[in-house]
């Protein structure tokens, strides 16, 4: 009788890949990352720290009061938007998670989805119509007798914050909803049955479970916000630009690629720092789970 050869165990199907197979599978992604992320990043650094003054280009950037103020405006406005978006987003996502009313669910879902489906220019133009001197808001307030003369709403930081908040809301609600779905709502009932008030149940039971999601949303929203370009240009005007506008101005109006590259690197540094802080606060594993 011929001997039946048993296949060695390690040649059978395995749920995990060996190192070379895994490497081969991710090779296309690595190639794309090197070409579209790695190479441009190296070029960006070369431009930022190249001509005319090498590392001194960074000093040149901070020598300009306009550049300093713009960086500050970018970081501070983004912070305000992030706080508003995360607070409102947390409430909306929680309502979406817990409501039993189909109507409420539908209304919230539409409010969240609509900004995603509309083009950026359309959204910004809608705010222009609302905020212009004789726009909807000013006319309504004048008609109600709240103001005598139209207020300057357009080309203000308020307009920028409002426009960005509206656009960023989905980016907070969606990840937070994904986290809320994993929270056992019976826990609230359980804690209430043990004497906790609803607020205490939310604070001591729900909040710790939702915290990674909240922080992850905060990081996502902030990092996206600091790169905003169109909204500050169109709703904020020429006197309160974001750093992205400065970069465009350096490249397309002043043709100063070194300063544009320095500003880009600084934005990357800010984004990296924010991600790092979020990572440290929440912990690697929880952050990964929160980000899905």
């Amino acid at each position, binding site marked *: 009788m011929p001997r039946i050869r048993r296949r060695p165990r390690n040649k059978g199907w395995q749920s995990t890949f060996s190192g070379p197979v895994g490497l081969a599978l991710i090779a296309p992604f690595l190639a794309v990352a090197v070409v579209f992320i790695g190479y441009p990043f190296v070029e960006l650094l070369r431009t930022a720290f190249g001509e005319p003054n090498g590392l001194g280009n960074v000093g040149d950037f901070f020598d300009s009061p306009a550049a300093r103020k713009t960086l500050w405006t970018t970081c501070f406005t983004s912070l305000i938007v992030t706080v508003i978006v995360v607070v409102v987003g947390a409430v909306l996502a929680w309502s979406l998670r817990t409501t039993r009313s189909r109507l409420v669910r539908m209304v919230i879902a539409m409010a969240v989805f609509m900004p995603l489906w509309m083009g950026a220019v359309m959204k910004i133009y809608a705010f222009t119509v609302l905020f212009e001197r004789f726009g909807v808001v000013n006319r309504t307030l004048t008609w109600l007798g709240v103001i005598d003369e139209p207020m300057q709403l357009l080309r203000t930081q308020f307009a920028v914050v409002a426009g960005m908040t509206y656009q960023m809301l989905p980016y907070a609600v969606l990840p937070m909803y994904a986290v809320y779905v994993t929270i056992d709502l019976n826990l609230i009932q359980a804690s209430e049955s043990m004497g906790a008030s609803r607020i205490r149940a939310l604070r001591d039971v729900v909040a710790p479970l939702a915290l990674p999601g909240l922080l992850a949303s905060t990081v996502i929203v902030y990092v996206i916000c600091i790169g905003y370009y169109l909204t500050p240009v169109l709703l904020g005007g020429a*006197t*309160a630009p974001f750093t992205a506008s400065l970069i465009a101005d350096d490249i397309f*109006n002043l043709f100063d690629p070194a300063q544009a590259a320095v500003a880009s690197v600084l934005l990357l540094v800010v984004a990296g720092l924010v991600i790092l802080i979020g990572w440290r606060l929440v912990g690697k594993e929880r952050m990964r789970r929160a980000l899905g």
Partner: protein
Amino acid sequence: MSSQRTHASGGGRQRPARLAALMVGALALAVASTAAACGSDSDSGSGSGGGSKSLVVAGWGGSFTAANKEFFYDQFEKDTGIKVTVATPGGGFAAKVAAQRAGNNIEWDLLEAPGGDTSKLVLDGNLEKFPASLVQQITPLVADGAIRPGPSEPYYLDHGGTVNLIGCNTKLIKKCPTNPREFFDVKNFPGTRGITANNPIFTSLFALAGDGVQPQQYFPVDVDRAMNALKRIKPNVQVWSTSPAQMQQAVVDGEVGIMQAPNTVLISAMKEVPQLKLFWDGGLLFDEGWCVPKGAKNKEAAFAFVKWYAEHRELQAKFTEKIYSGTGGRDMQKYLSPEVVKNLPINKTGVTLVDGKSGAKQQLELGKRLREVLVG
């Protein structure tokens, strides 16, 4: 976990999961539509490449480009079969072309460029010289001196000529400023103001005029004096427009009552704001022209357009009648009514033709300093 969800949704166990799936779907749709939008952008860019059946024109936007499209681009497309695509980068042509050349990817074939930019483009060597045969063909058709900056340097053909002047909405303003000095006098001439800030040379010269500098002393620009004048008026300026369309919207919406803007913008806005009055005293005229960026993918099509334009003086006349902007054609008074000729910017009293070449030399410095004033 499942029991928890049942509790939450009042018996509908899968609702949150369904909703989550829907949300993921919505997000994916948004990402996909964004990607599609980006894709369509790149498609339009690639359309400019290849043979000479395509022509990409970069224009100012607003009424000037709209009139160019109405009288020239559409008809040129019909006559020649060359598809014209219009991009509206909104000024800063010289730096944008320089950036495109540095990136080795010239996106535009023809520019509707203002004088400051054309001079800078010539200075930086970023324009294609008109071929000798083209110069020979169009010389009898265009006015003397319309091929610029000079006979030995045929780099652009005069077309347009925009004046930045003062406009005033008499519905909103009781006492209108009639010249730059009065524009900068916010005490005696109160009202919301708008200043065009997409060309640092224009803005700086306007500030100098507002501070009492005579036109013959504009160059070299006294940068400190110009910027100090702008700093003083800044609290009274609601809109610093970075594109013609932006100023037009601000005028029509009544956001500004007193403005310094291109004549094309103001004349176009007058259709919706008939109370708008124009004051030409202290107006700054920049010649404009058709020019071809060095390395343009469809430069043959661009030169074909320049020739076609020179041959169509009747269309040039219609263009002028529409937006009161001059053209490069020879003997245009034969095609225009005396009333229109009288009202052309070049014939208005108090208008100064700006020396684009001198302006171009200080453009970078003025641009940086203007930004400090606006943002600082």
